């Protein structure tokens, strides 16, 4: 069990080392692609096991929980690991056509693999302090990726990004310290048992709010999101895509994990705050996007807006709403990463991302137009694409909870999302190119064209599959939500109610 859980972490680290040592030749990128493919295989294996056996857990170094570091995967963790690997593979392939040789020599592929390892680690860890460590791994790798190449704009975005993330990290660490002082443990399953027994429940709620702010910065919720639109439009397109797909979602995942497993004592307070946050995040994000005229900046603001939907699912805290949040997470990672990949191709063939300066893509690059249309309308929630079902489940959950206002906000935001998407559509695709040129996919070298288009098409196909056959995915999300709301299996598995890895501590000591 230990190796099954550790493999999705070991593979990207090994790939990072190999890719860095081979960074001066074509083998670096090949190793990166191969590593991503292997990681996908390992995550699928993990997923299959979790589907068959329920929650799996393993103790690293054979130190028993709650003393050592536990890796644990329930359905939510497993699906996040799989989706990370899918996105990782898609972007790794895309990067072979997008990343310049100079960026490769500076170690792009190694940083990219370390980033994937950090994201995966955050999803499978069962220990709060270890979660902090994975956040750091992610932060270090993402800072490197953000400023790789070192243009002035990138440094500017990078400084904002790092500064705000450091503030969040400090808050997170202080919260971890206080929690440890109160309970004497940082194992999440153990915390789920001990936190309700803490006498001073007021203090627990304070710590819960510290975690909410800390993860809120990572997830880019209102009013803590401003670092995201300031930095995501500056780096290479592969980097933006993987950031947009995965990084904020780690924050959302951490919020879901912590506020379903540990801080459930005062849901009347914490989850009401989350509900307000969700509403404002949705609305402010989409309004911000409406004011932008740059392809990537519009998409960046939409990340913020979409995060609101996921938080909404968590805030309502009903089985259906949580299922909606899980479904939304999966759908959004695929769609958002894909949109950024499309914007990269548009940049390559039309010569920019500023909407006023490009155009004519529909006429001369119809394939790209179709590949944009699928994720864009999925994001806006057009049936029969994946976004429709994600929004449908969430709106239904809010109506069932009797919360008409938030359901109305969610629907209005969906409408405004269509407005932004049609803006991109009208400007970049329908309008003739202002300089009179015809942007064509055939203007790209054949190898680059393949590397850029294949991952986009694959992710678009995945969106269609989820959209056309939502039944198994919704059923899966409901099972995952069931596990989140009833974490007994998780706690028992981690703390060894069920036979885990045999403990041989005595023998290991010299």
């Amino acid at each position: 069990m230990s190796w099954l859980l550790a493999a999705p972490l070991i593979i990207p680290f090994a790939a990072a080392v190999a890719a860095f040592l081979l960074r001066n030749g074509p083998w670096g990128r090949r190793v990166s692609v191969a590593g991503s493919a292997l990681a996908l295989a390992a995550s699928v294996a993990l997923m299959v096991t979790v589907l068959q056996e329920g929650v799996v857990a393993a103790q690293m170094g054979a130190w028993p929980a709650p003393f050592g570091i536990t890796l644990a995967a329930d359905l939510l963790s497993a699906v996040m690991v799989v989706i990370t690997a899918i996105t990782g593979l898609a972007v790794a392939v895309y990067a072979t056509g997008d990343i310049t040789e100079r960026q490769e020599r500076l170690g792009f592929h190694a940083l990219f693999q370390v980033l994937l390892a950090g994201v995966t680690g955050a999803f499978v860890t069962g220990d709060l302090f270890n979660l902090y460590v994975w956040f750091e791994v992610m932060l270090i790798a993402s800072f490197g990726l953000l400023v790789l190449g070192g243009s002035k704009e990138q440094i500017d975005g990078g400084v904002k990004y790092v500064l705000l993330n450091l503030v969040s990290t400090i808050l997170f660490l202080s919260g971890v310290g206080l929690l440890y002082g109160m309970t004497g443990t940082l194992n999440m399953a153990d915390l789920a048992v001990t936190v309700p027994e803490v006498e001073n429940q007021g203090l627990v709620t304070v710590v819960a709010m510290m975690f909410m702010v800390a993860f809120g910065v990572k997830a880019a919720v209102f009013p803590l999101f401003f670092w995201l639109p300031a930095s995501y439009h500056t780096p290479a397109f592969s980097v933006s895509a993987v950031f947009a797909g995965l990084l904020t979602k780690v924050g959302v995942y951490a919020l879901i994990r912590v506020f379903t497993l540990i801080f459930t004592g005062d849901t009347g307070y914490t989850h009401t705050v989350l509900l307000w946050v969700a509403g404002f995040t949705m609305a402010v994000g989409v309004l911000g996007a409406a004011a932008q005229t740059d392809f990537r900046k519009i998409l960046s603001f939409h990340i913020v807006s979409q995060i609101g939907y996921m938080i909404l699912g968590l805030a309502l805290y009903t089985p259906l709403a949580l299922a909606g949040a899980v479904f939304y997470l999966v759908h959004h990672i695929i769609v958002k990463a894909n949109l950024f990949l499309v914007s990269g191709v548009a940049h390559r063939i039309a010569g920019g991302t500023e909407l006023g300066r490009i155009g004519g893509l529909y006429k001369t690059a119809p394939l790209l137009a179709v590949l944009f249309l699928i994720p864009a309308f999925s994001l806006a929630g057009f049936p029969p694409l994946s976004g429709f079902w994600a929004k449908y489940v969430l709106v239904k959950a809010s109506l069932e909870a009797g919360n008409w206002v938030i359901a109305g906000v969610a629907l209005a935001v969906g409408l405004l999302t269509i407005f932004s998407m049609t803006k991109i559509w009208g400007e970049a695709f329908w309008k003739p190119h202002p300089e009179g040129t015809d942007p064509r996919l055939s203007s790209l070298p054949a190898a680059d064209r393949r590397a850029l288009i294949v991952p986009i098409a694959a992710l678009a196909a995945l969106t269609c599959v989820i959209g056309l056959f939502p039944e198994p995915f919704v059923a899966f999300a409901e099972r995952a939500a069931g596990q989140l709301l009833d974490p007994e299996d998780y706690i028992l598995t981690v703390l060894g109610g069920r036979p885990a890895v045999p403990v041989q501590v005595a023998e290991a000591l010299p």
Partner: protein
Amino acid sequence: MNSVILMAGSRILVALLLVFSVFMLLRGHNEPGGGFIGGLIGAVGFVIYAIACGTSSAREALRVPPETVAAAGLGVALLGGVWAAVDGDAFFTGQWLFLGATEDSKGLPLSSVLVFDVGVYLVVFGSILSLVFALEEEV
């Protein structure tokens, strides 16, 4: 910097610091020390050399780019964790080999923990040096 005293002193200091860093690395399992502090001390040796004789000669003396050292260190540390697979234990379980162990003596204990520590040493050593060299070389 052109200081004869520093250049003369650095020869002794560099050697001393490097030996001391290995000493700290090896005593790290049971006493204060270990890969992190060892790596820092080792890096200080080369930093002194770079200050005294210039970054380019420090790079020459190192032979491999410091970034490569750091990446290799990450690989070595990973190896220390994966080693546990040989005996079918959980990831990162310490594996021990007692050289020349008898009834009343444990002999020389060697472990995968030390491999991990060597990895940490290289990562710290390499990354500190990349930072310092980059800062020294910038205009």
